[in-house]
């Protein structure tokens, strides 16, 4: 119940944000406190934390999603697009392989976030279908979409390069990113079908 109330409050805050966009550069009131109330009072975020990123994101259920909600957990972030035939299914497979390589305790506290390059095509329905098809545990996995400018900003902080080269086609770099519980990039796996054991050990070493 408490969680529900908190979520409703967060939704209201987010709605307020969107109605009255803050002047660029200023930290709007709704972002001064982070979404997860249990961590709102702890030390300020490190400067390199990607939780400083703003943006109106939503998940596979169509519910608001905030990267700051990952605070306190190690997280794995992958940018992809759903209509990709060749590479993205492999990258998603690599990320699932990383999940499977984790010790059970670490797996239970790690969050996995897939962010689409193509929010127009990757609707919540398609994201849910992808999650079901690939057997993703939605208590740990979020499939997220955002506005083009926010996707570009996230790609920029992750060092992911991409371009739209057709109506439903993108060229992009293949990068799986591990962030620590404060949102700072801890490790990146570049390329396809790379070994994931080192990344798994790095996640296990991250204390919450």
């Amino acid at each position, binding site marked *: 119940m408490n969680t529900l109330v908190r979520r409703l409050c967060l939704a209201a805050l987010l709605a307020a944000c969107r109605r009255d966009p803050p002047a660029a*550069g200023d930290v709007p009131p709704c972002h001064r406190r982070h979404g997860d109330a249990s961590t709102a009072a702890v030390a300020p975020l490190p*400067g390199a934390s*990607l939780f400083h990123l703003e943006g109106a994101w939503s998940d596979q259920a169509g519910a608001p999603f905030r990267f700051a909600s990952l605070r306190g957990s190690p997280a794995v972030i992958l940018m992809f697009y759903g209509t990709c035939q060749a590479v993205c299914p492999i990258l998603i497979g690599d990320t699932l392989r990383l999940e499977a390589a984790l010790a059970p305790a670490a797996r239970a506290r790690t969050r996995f976030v897939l962010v689409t390059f193509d929010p127009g095509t990757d609707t919540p329905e398609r994201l849910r279908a992808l999650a079901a098809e690939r057997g993703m545990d939605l208590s740990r996995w979020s499939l997220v979409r955002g506005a083009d*400018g926010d996707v570009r900003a996230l790609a920029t*902080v992750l060092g*992911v390069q991409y371009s739209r*080269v057709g109506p439903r086609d993108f*060229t992009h770099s293949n*990068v799986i990113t591990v962030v620590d519980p404060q949102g700072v990039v801890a490790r990146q796996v*570049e390329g396809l079908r790379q070994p994931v054991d080192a990344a798994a050990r790095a996640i296990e070493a991250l204390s919450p």
Partner: protein
Amino acid sequence: MRALAAALAALVTHAAGALAQATPPDMRAIRGGTYAPFYRLTARPTVTVAAFLLDARPVTEGQFAAFVRAHPAWRRGRVVALFADPGYLAHWPDADGPSVSADPARPVTRVSWFAARAYCESVGRRLPTEAEWEFVARASETAPDAPRDPATVARILAWYGRTGAAPPGPVGAGRPNVWGLHDLHGLVWEWVEDFNSALVVTDSRDNTGPGAARFCGAASLGARDTGDYAAFMRYAFRQSLRGAYTVHNLGFRCARDLTPGAPR
């Protein structure tokens, strides 16, 4: 007859007003077009740019100082490390004070992509896309599409070849190109929204190593027009950047959609 003349005059005034409203005095309206960029994509050999508005000049230190005063989160001493590296505005005397530039007429440099974006957003504009910027950069002083005009190319390459960290001169000093745009070449490099596009593989000789694995679709890329060395230099430079980087000769200008919501 007099009524007709008055009506016509009103109409003309109205049309002029609408046009003036569409194009602020510090921007230029760029008629869209299609061009073949120097790189070639199997899926997209040409690039089409919709009509848009672009600042006639790079954003100046004076303009950026006013922005920083209004938005203290972008002061040098306060900016979040994720959004700007330690070189941000390093040449300004004052880290956390009223933010006064020593030379307000020169283009602002040592600003990150995030800072450039925030500035444009603060004035109701956005960064130009790479396709938009490269489209207008093809113009000479007399023609909209002259990427191989020998005099223009020679001038651009001479500037690219110049080394040293001398501060740039004031904006708008040189002759504008055919669009009425100043300083696209010869003063500072400029940020674009999608500077981290994946159009150029960092090292194309490495087709089998990690470079090939890192990119989806890398095999479909290739240089189309090796004569357009200036464009190659710009793409290569952009690929070397990260969003928080600041560089002594990298500034920006802002753009705006001509038709709100038009695809770009």
